[in-house]
């Protein structure tokens, strides 16, 4: 049986293990995050949400997913 390769990413400050070659869109989908209500940063760069289906994640990628909370 072929072993599934895994990679480590940093997701919202936490080291997380995911399957290799997964796209950012697949990750967001797996996490059940409402895409319309968040912004995503990959390695300190803001990601265009229309392009996440083509973005494959790499080992050591740093991802921040943020949303609005009350506060001023």
């Amino acid at each position, binding site marked *: 049986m072929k072993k599934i390769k895994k990679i480590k990413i940093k997701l919202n400050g936490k080291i997380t293990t995911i399957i290799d070659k997964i796209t950012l869109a697949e990750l967001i989908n797996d996490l059940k995050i409402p895409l319309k209500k968040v912004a995503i940063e990959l390695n300190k760069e803001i990601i265009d949400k229309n392009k996440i289906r083509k973005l494959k994640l790499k080992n050591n990628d740093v991802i921040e997913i943020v949303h609005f909370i009350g506060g*001023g």
Partner: protein
Amino acid sequence: MSECAKAIKLSGADIVTVAVRRVNISDKNKPLLMDYIDPKKITYLPNTAGCFTSDDALRTLRLAREIGGWKLVKLEVLGDKKNLFPEMIETLKSTEVLTKEGFKVMVYCNDDPLMAKRLENAGASAIMPLAAPIGSGLGILNKVNIKIIRKQTKLPLIIDAGLGQASDATIAMELGCDGVLVNTAIAKAKKPFEMAKAFKYAVIAGRQSFCSGRINKTIMGKPSSPIKGTI
């Protein structure tokens, strides 16, 4: 969250400031702000509360624009963890950058008329001087400066931070301000809903008073009834 939404409704506020924070990945059932406060009914104003550098503030607001597509933002760059005063050099630099990127920037600043002018020249969309340190509840400490800023600018002038009770909002409006930004004075009041209502009426009263043109001050008494016909 529902209490917050209720207080906002009672206060009659048009704008609510929001902060950009990490999504809770492990507990996705946590309620979202947008589920309680409809961004179509009240203007969300993303802000950089808690940022101490220009870089952090810029990063936050660029992310905010990505979330909602809003160009109207509130910039706040703090300089001191104890008094939470704004770091005005960084604030001015950030205002310039954000304006060039197409943002409409409402700027939290100190109550210095010269700095307020520089922010205006840098393209700020609104001037938001503090009344007193954030969360201090001291009310407007320098009315003269606020009046000077009012005289020199046609931009929206909003008192941001330091108000403690409803009458402080009335004073701000009587000085000619266009609005007030209130959090702690309502949120930490013993009866937040009642205080939210009090602020609503205080703002209306202050605005009407300002627009009505107050009488001149004199140090001598003037009879308020006619002397003619006295028996």
